[in-house]
């Protein structure tokens, strides 16, 4: 394959970005939409070509030397292999769909051109992240997507709360990024290279490896992943990120960017395989995140918040898989999740669109007649995420749970509970949104309508994908595993031969899901209970509703102290320091004032001093004479 192709793949979105930035306003909304979407579609086409034509061997393209340090040079280069192609496929694919969707969704916004500009820029950076040939190239993309997410979360910048959310997202990511950087430093120091291919060979062949430093590197990198992929303790930014327009939430905060962490770990699987201790940490963190997020999602009333937390918990499951060393399964779940979560978000977007910006599920209900397509698609996606046979989610989630069961039953338990909850809150969402009678204002009621085809088309496609997505890796013979196998240092653990345990586990999982759905059905369809208003929420629910008060805790533990410290430094330390410097001057002037009193103009005194001087000198002379 030739360089130009890759450059096209990379630069198409960038050109789209430039066009929308400089000409977008003049060109008019339709052109903007078309250009934006096309530029991504081109990349998608190229990706498909690569996918079709690419051989087994990874291809490396080095454009030029970028940064040099004493130990090694870092080249500005790209690496095309199975993993990157796979990621490109759904990044650009879903990307194009969401662009398409946005054309209609953002049509009423006067800053549509900048919206598309940012989206294109995001795709550009995402591609860079995926095809970067070394850690630092990946880091460019890594920070770049962070930037775009900042820009898009704060897209409606007139609302300072949104801006705060954006800032929070960027800074939390930065915390992770520091970890990433440190990881890069350690890796560079240990192996004198940041290049993936070289690293792989070095590490796999290396004989004497300092386990501690490997672990340190792995841990640092994992912190980076936590930042991007919203794992405990750095997950709180993701729910707030829902401030951005819904397509953004779908693209960046569900399907693609947040999976960057998984991508990175998978990329560096050979490194993490060297650090089992860290893998355990990853698994545990993943499991906990899955559970915690799920519990929070149980009681949220903002439709997007529910989805956001479900995203966090799904990401948790993926990390659980990574922690267990089952990278391809994680990847599998990433893909399926991309399908159904994107679908869900876009669906919710369609709903919000239909209700003119209403996001509170307590103000919805009974929409299934008004917006049938949205309803159907979302239902499919919901079933998929709940893990109902034979939808995509079932396969991927099941694989994870099976692996967990084999490696560590407790984690399996946690995972299963999380997925049961998932089933529950997803259907809570479905029931509250689409069933029973409409609870919104009359005015909204009259305008209820199905969204235009530009919105529904992506929904349908994604729904189909989330229905059949599972086939790429069925137990027994998994195309995915074979496709990815060259990546992994350890022989990829073969798909479980379907024994009795496996079937039993599948059964348990399905039953669990059904139970979850059942409860939701009983509570929200039969009894038609509507979640209470914020004011009356009490007890455990209140704690969950307020996300365990984690944000508040962070505020108290980190943000406030820093600001207090800042004030203290500004008002006390600074003034003291400068007072010290001025103080010297003050002291001397003090002396001067005293001195003025001495020079009191009386000749007598002057002469007296004169004589004293003489006497002093003479006596000193004499003493010298005598004592020497």
């Amino acid at each position, binding site marked *: 394959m030739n360089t130009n192709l890759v450059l096209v793949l990379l630069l198409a979105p960038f050109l789209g970005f430039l066009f929308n930035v400089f000409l977008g306003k003049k060109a008019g909304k339709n052109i903007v939409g078309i250009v934006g979407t096309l530029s991504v579609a081109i990349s998608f086409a190229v990706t498909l070509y690569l996918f079709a034509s690419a051989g087994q061997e990874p291809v490396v393209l080095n454009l030029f030397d970028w940064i040099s340090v004493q130990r090694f040079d870092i080249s500005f280069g790209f690496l095309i292999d199975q993993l990157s192609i796979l990621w490109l496929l759904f990044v650009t694919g879903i990307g194009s769909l969401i662009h398409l969707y946005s054309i209609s969704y953002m049509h009423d916004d006067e800053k549509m051109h900048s919206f598309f500009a940012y989206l294109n820029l995001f795709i550009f950076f995402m591609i860079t992240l995926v095809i970067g040939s070394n850690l630092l190239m990946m880091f460019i993309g890594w920070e770049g997507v962070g930037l775009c997410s900042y820009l898009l979360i704060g897209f409606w910048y007139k609302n300072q709360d949104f801006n705060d959310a954006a800032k929070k997202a960027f800074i939390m990511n930065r915390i992770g990024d520091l970890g990433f950087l440190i990881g890069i430093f350690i890796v560079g120091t240990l192996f004198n290279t940041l290049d993936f291919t070289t690293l792989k060979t070095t590490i796999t062949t290396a004989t004497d490896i300092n386990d501690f430093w490997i672990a340190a590197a792995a841990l640092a990198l994992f912190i980076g992943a936590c930042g991007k992929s919203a794992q405990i303790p750095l997950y709180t930014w993701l729910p707030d990120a829902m401030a951005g327009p819904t397509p953004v939430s779908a693209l960046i905060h569900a399907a693609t960017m947040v999976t960057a962490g998984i991508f990175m770990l998978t990329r560096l699987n050979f490194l993490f395989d060297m650090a089992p201790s860290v893998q355990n940490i990853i698994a545990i963190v993943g499991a906990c995140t899955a559970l915690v997020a799920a519990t929070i999602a149980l009681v949220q009333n903002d439709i997007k918040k529910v989805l956001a937390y479900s995203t966090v918990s799904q990401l948790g499951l993926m990390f659980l898989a990574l922690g267990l060393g089952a990278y391809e399964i994680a990847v599998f779940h990433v893909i399926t999740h991309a399908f159904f979560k994107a679908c869900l978000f876009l669906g919710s977007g369609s709903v919000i669109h239909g209700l003119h910006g209403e996001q509170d599920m307590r103000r919805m209900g009974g929409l299934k007649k008004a917006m049938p397509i949205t309803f159907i698609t979302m239902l499919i996606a919901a079933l998929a995420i709940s893990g109902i046979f034979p939808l995509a989610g079932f396969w991927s989630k099941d694989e994870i749970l099976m692996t967990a069961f084999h490696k560590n039953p407790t984690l399996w338990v946690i995972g299963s509970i999380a997925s049961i909850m998932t089933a529950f809150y997803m259907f809570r969402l479905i029931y509250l949104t689409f069933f029973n009678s409409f609870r919104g204002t009359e005015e909204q009621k009259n305008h209820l309508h199905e969204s235009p085809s530009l919105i529904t088309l992506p929904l349908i496609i994604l729904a189909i994908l989330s229905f059949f997505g599972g086939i790429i890796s069925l137990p027994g013979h998994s195309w995915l595993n074979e496709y990815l196998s060259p990546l992994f240092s350890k022989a990829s653990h073969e798909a479980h031969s379907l024994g009795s345990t496996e079937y039993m586990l599948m059964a348990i999982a399905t039953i669990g899901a059904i139970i979850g759905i059942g409860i939701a059905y009983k509570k929200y369809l039969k009894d038609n209970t509507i979640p209470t208003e914020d004011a009356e929420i009490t007890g455990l629910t209140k704690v969950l509703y307020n996300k365990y008060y984690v944000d508040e805790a962070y505020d108290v533990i980190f943000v406030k102290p820093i600001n207090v410290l800042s004030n203290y430094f500004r008002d006390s330390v600074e003034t003291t320091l400068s007072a010290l410097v001025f103080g010297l*001057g003050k002291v*001397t*002037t003090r*002396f*001067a*004032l005293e*001195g*003025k009193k001495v*020079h009191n*103009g009386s*000749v007598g*005194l*002057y*002469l007296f*001093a*004169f004589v*004293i*001087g*003489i006497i002093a*000198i*003479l006596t*000193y*002379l004499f003493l*010298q*004479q005598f004592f020497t």
Partner: protein
Amino acid sequence: MNTLIAISGLGVLCLLFEIFNFRKAIVPVTIIGLLAILGLTYAEFNAPASFYNNMIVVSKFSAVFSALFIVLTVFLIALSHDFYEDHQTKISDFIAIKIFMLAGAVAMVSFGNLAMFFLGIEVLSISLYILAASNRLNVKSNEAGMKYFLMGSFASGIILFGICFIYGAMGSFDVAEITEWSRSAELPIWFPIGITLVTIGMLFKIAAVPFHFWAPDVYEGSPTLTTTTMSTLVKVVAIATLYKLLTAMNADLSDTYINIIIVISIASMTVGNIMALKQNNVKRMLAFSGISHAGFMLMTLLNISNSAGNLLYYTTAYSLSGIAAFAVILYVCKNKNNEDIANFNGLGKNNPLMAAVLTASLLSMAGIPIFAGFFAKMFLFTQTIEAGYLIVVIAAVINSIISVGYYFKLILAMYNKEANEEATKTPFVLYAVAIVSILLNIVLGLFPSVVLDLLG
């Protein structure tokens, strides 16, 4: 020798001018005369000799310093033209006195015999007493004159006493003989006492702590032009003479001496600078700054055997910037009854050129590159460190930091404050003197070797 005679002759001439009523011509003629005499000195520079059985001994040292004195006097005379314009009748007297003072100064640096030294110093001092008190109707001027006179004659007494002891020890006034014997024989205790007393007398003249008390009062009280004379010419003369005296009497100073000088030098710097910080009267401030500079000049005595060049350079740089500064002060404080810093407010706008000159000269005194003052200090520090007195240098550095404080007070007044009245037109002479002297200063900064190599 010829220099001395010529100068005295010129003095007499000035007096005659008054009689023949050539008042107008007096200043230019004197200046021309002095310049001619400068030529004479150049001749003497190449031909060292001694006259009247060693009463006068002309050496490179004396010749160069006499030249410096003459140059300074030229500036002073030039300034005096419009300074005395409102009492023209006395101008010839004043100029004559200045010339005689110059004669005294020359005698002081080229003495070969303590008698000559004493006469020189007295001629200088007495002329100064007169100049200090010259503004008869002004109480301050009187007071200044009186104070200076009392303390000055007291100091003369001390010097005389010292000379007497030296004579007692050596039985001769001839410097050459004294030097000889001071090297050879077991000396009576009187000799060091004598030297010390004379030194103290000179320290008084250069206003070193603790013999400095007269300086601020006298500087403040005297007419500005006299202050100029004191702070430039007289200080230079005194330190040069002291240097020559000590080199002549006992070339290698004993540690005792060195210690005394170190203490006095550091004390002078510190007291001078600190006291200058809180002065509102510019002349008074410069008096204290002069005291601190005296401290710096004393550092040359620490490495006495080979610091003649540095001394010359330092004094030249210092006096040139002094002349420039005072020229501006004369302009600013003309027909004002005081010399407070307030008078300088807004000079930067009213008269940028003069302001620039004053700034430059102050920067030179503060020792900022490229002005000569910086190199002067630099060379001083170098040779002091070479002589191994790092402490003194550090003290000196700390002092130069303090000194910036008050020099910049003036600069700030000029540029940062609003003027309180309109600019007055500047007489050409002031411009000329100010600019020429500051230019000389800068040139010295760019080519230090010119002066430095005169006394290698």
